[in-house]
């Protein structure tokens, strides 16, 4: 009798193990056989590269598809194996790096570059073959998107320096008797009262994402301090310009600029408020021009950031609320076809820019494109091209301290909530600055 129970147990164990192993085994095998099948003996010159890239909606799929089509013409021997990346705070890419699984080509931002460069998980491209030409073709001012603060190059950028502007609904402005554009801070407060009186939300903001509150703050700040956060490097106290911006932020909030639920509003909700005429203003990057044009047509335009008085407004109009940051396509130092991967990364970055420039009429890209624009850009974009781009005075410069930037994101989001004052803001920021720069 003893034997029987034992045998049953053993049998079950074996069964369990074998089924799970079989599952693993077969899965592993199918993986490798397809790989073998794809490179039959005769075609060994075909180079396969793994690429990790954003690929989930029109904004990300179209440029990729365009670039891949071009790549087929230019380098027919290269085949890309795409793994779509998701917005996950870089969790997956970091895990790949930590476990030695990095794809040949991957997209990076400044945070990633900083950490990967320290741990040698990213190829330094200073002397790579395509670098000199790429650098030469950069649009003026876009060096910050390519050269990291340590003076080295780790990525080929495709996006230009993007910036945030205030969109407004012309019809709602007219109906409420608000003169557009709003130039001064007092006009702004006055406008808030007028909109509120009509039951219209003055400004919709998707502050569930922390960066947008930060962008709002930077918009105010750049009227006084065009360099932005870079002036804080090594500082332990907030300069006056920062305090003033925080105070304006707080006053505008108290006046009722934001929705009570702003910090729980996502992009879809915030944009819908603006596009359905429930909100008079909307804050986002210049990329929003396309969908606001589609949704509101002639009723929408954008304005420069208001300042404390009209003189300051005129003087700082072209101090853009945006900054260059290194980022783009990078290459893994462990790639088996590193040379090719570097060529492809540079090529793709150029083609992404080319797509945006020629197919969307978007001139805000990293490199110069010599092909003609295939579409008429929306009116608001045309205005940007004619009126703003040639006159840009400055962009902000970033702080190298990731922690200070995170602290700004946290505390600008706090500022949107009633009860959190600019004094709290200053205290919190200075505590972090003292910790970082001690």
């Amino acid at each position: 009798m003893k034997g029987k129970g034992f045998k049953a147990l053993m049998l079950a164990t074996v069964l369990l193990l074998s089924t799970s192993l079989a599952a693993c085994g077969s899965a592993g095998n199918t993986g490798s056989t397809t790989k073998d099948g794809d490179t039959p003996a005769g075609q060994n010159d075909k180079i396969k590269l793994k690429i990790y890239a954003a690929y989930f909606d029109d904004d990300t799929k179209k440029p990729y598809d365009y670039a891949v089509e071009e790549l087929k013409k230019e380098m027919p021997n290269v085949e890309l194996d795409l793994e779509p990346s998701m917005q996950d705070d870089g969790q997956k890419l970091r895990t790949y790096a930590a476990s030695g699984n990095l794809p040949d080509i991957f997209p990076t931002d400044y945070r990633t570059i900083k950490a990967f460069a320290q741990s040698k998980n990213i190829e330094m491209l200073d002397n790579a073959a395509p670098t000199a030409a790429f650098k030469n073709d950069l649009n003026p001012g876009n060096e910050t998107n390519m050269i990291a603060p340590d003076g080295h190059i780790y990525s080929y950028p495709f996006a230009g320096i993007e910036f945030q502007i205030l969109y407004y609904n012309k019809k709602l402005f007219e109906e409420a008797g608000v003169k557009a554009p709003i130039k001064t801070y007092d006009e702004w407060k006055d406008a808030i009262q007028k909109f509120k009186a009509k039951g219209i939300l003055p400004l919709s903001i998707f502050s569930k994402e922390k960066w947008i509150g930060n962008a709002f703050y930077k918009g105010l700040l750049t009227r006084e301090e065009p360099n932005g956060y870079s002036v804080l490097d090594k500082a332990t106290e907030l300069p006056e310009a920062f305090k003033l911006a925080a105070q304006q932020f707080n006053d505008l909030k108290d006046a009722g600029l934001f929705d009570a639920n702003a910090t729980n509003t996502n992009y879809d909700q915030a944009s819908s408020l603006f596009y359905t005429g429930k909100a008079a203003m909307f804050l986002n990057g210049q990329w929003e021009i396309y969908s606001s044009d589609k949704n509101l047509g002639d009723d929408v335009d954008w304005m420069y950031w208001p300042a404390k008085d009209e003189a300051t407004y005129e003087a700082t109009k072209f101090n853009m609320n945006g900054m260059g940051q290194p980022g783009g396509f990078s290459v893994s130092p462990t790639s088996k076809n590193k040379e090719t991967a570097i060529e492809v990364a540079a090529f793709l970055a150029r083609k992404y820019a080319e797509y945006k420039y020629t197919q969307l009429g978007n001139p805000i890209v990293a490199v110069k494109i010599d092909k003609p624009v295939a579409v008429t850009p929306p009116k608001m974009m045309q205005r940007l091209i004619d009126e703003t781009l040639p006159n840009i005075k400055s962009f902000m410069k970033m702080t190298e301290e990731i922690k200070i930037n995170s602290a700004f994101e946290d505390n600008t989001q706090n500022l949107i909530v009633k009860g959190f004052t600019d004094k709290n803001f200053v205290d919190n920021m200075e505590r972090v600055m003292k910790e970082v720069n001690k």
Partner: protein
Amino acid sequence: MLLRQKSGSILMQGVLWIYFLVSVYPLFWMVSYSLKNNDEIFVTNPFGLPLNFRYENYINAWSQFSIPNYFLNSVVVSTVSTIGILFLAVMFAYTIARMQWKLRSAARVYILIGMFIPLQVIMIPLAILVKDFNLVNTYGALIIPYIAFGLPFSSLVFYGFMVSIPIELEESACMDGASIYRTFFQIIVPIVKPAIATIAIFQFLGAWNEFLLAYILISDEAMKTLPLGLLFFQGEYSTDWGGMGAVMTMASIPMVVVFLFFSEQVERALTVGSAVKG
């Protein structure tokens, strides 16, 4: 007195049924959600039936990724991990509930630790392990961690059940000369059946809905599980919430069905279980 009791019980019943509605409403809400667009979801009609049924969310989901394939992967991963957990946990629980060995209570505390481990912090060491064992992009990459992480909770629930079983049953089996294995399989396992059924549901649900590990450890399209389908609807700026709703509905409805089936079993097992004990 009797009247008061009666009206009290009617009140109680009312409360029970209201809570029932509150518990079941999410099902209705989820299905409605999956047939709406962003505007309806957030602004115009967040709680009611869709004004017009947008079946295209489902068609869209269907065209985005291979649903049958994802579904199959989810079934395989959840089933195998659940079986693995049940098997290992019941046996282990018996050794800490009944068997006499030196490290017995130490082993109980040791397994308890696993209930408190935040996945985020061991993600990177775990990913390295999975790679070292050549499990990346296999069912094993999920099944093995799911089993390991399911053990603490399951073992402790079984332990709780087993310590409350009267020892006389095993004593008499022992007198009859049954082996420990026979006692275990023919006496203990049947008694803890209700617990087994309960844990089976918990663990299956856990594996079925698990997102983080699956997201980090699986990148091969052919190996992905259903929760990963949600990612197809997150845009760079905008998100297709209705499409996500469609995926969530397709992932959840089978679970509800499985649960309805199992809960019947649990109920039956519970009745049998208490009969044995009493």
